[in-house]
């Protein structure tokens, strides 16, 4: 079982993903494939995502039973808790500004 969620993705990528996966909601794709196919699908996302962002989650034999991988900028970032993978949600305020100010300041 695997799920891909894309945000702000170009229509050609969304169409491409729909070749193998079922789009159950806007930008949410579900399917059941092995490792090889999953990597091929993720390569499609990597090549086609442009300025959008994406996450891929799939079933594994880890303790939580799944793993996930992300691509592009998002306020939700992976967090590792001694081997258990969770997600941290960045605040909207100062942290964002710092990031924006970074390139301008230099």
């Amino acid at each position, binding site marked *: 079982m695997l799920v891909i969620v894309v945000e702000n993705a170009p229509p050609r990528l969304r169409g491409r993903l729909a070749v193998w996966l079922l789009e159950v909601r806007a930008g949410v794709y579900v399917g059941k494939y092995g490792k090889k196919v999953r990597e091929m699908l993720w390569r499609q996302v990597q090549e086609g995502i442009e300025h959008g962002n994406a996450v891929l989650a799939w079933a594994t034999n880890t303790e939580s039973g799944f793993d996930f991988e992300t691509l592009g900028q998002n306020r939700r970032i992976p967090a590792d*808790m001694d081997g258990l993978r969770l997600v941290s949600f960045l*605040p909207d*305020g100062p942290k964002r500004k710092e990031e924006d100010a970074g390139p301008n300041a230099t």
Partner: protein
Amino acid sequence: MLPPLKPIPVKDRVSVVFVEKGQLDVLDGAFVVVDKHGVRTHIPVGGVACLMLEIGTRVSHAAVVLAARVGCLLVWVGEGGVRLYSAGQPGGARADRLLYQASLALDDAARLKAVRKMYALRFKEEPPARRSVEQLRGIEGARVRKMYELIARQHRVEWKWRNYDHTEWGSGDVPNRCLSAATACLYGVTEAAILAAGYAPAVGFIHTGKPQSFVYDIADIFKFETVVPVAFRIAATQPQAPERAVRIACRDAFRQTKLLARIIPTIEQVLAAGDLPVPKPPEESVAPAIPNKEQLGDAGHRG
């Protein structure tokens, strides 16, 4: 209206999560850790058996209530993850089970049978016949020392003896620190499972006189299969941060041995070996006015 929160069985959960620093709170009904920069990390407490809170954490009232509702045991730990105090209501609310456990512990013949069962489960062979609990404990101690030496040699770790000063964390050598960190994880999930099954952590059979005597009894059955090899394997690599490496490896060991699915059935097996009937409620006792609702969780969970 959303349906009420209910605990799920321990076997369907992730073993332990350590929270190092931050404010534990409830936001929009979800359990979150908020760090000083405002970064929020959701912890799916309903799917965690035991939450270990380290030194830099603060907990709100709402967070404790939520953890209790979903049957997640909160354990406050000190340096190296060694237990200090625990709370929450993951279970332990079944009088019939508490009385059953106590009746076995009070009956010398039943207690010996339960201890012999623990020995058999732990070493995968029947203990020698006609031995007292005291004698079995002696045989067990000698075997355990040998096993420590053997596993240390397998992983090429220099092993002196199991020693630690629990008042001073940094005092132990690396293998002992790894062992303490690993056993702390095992004790956490074992206590959560004992409570969820409706039994008392303090009423032990081999161990007595400690608030977690029964936790040590049950954890010992799994110790040499799970945490001891993990601790020595990590110690052999001379890690920078032994605790973290040990916890990651424990998670794998717990998954591979299906520990969470096995603890409660093992407890039942040990107690059943005592060969005493489960006490029936007295005839004149009054049944609850409001019948208990059907629950999804384990027997001891407060639904």
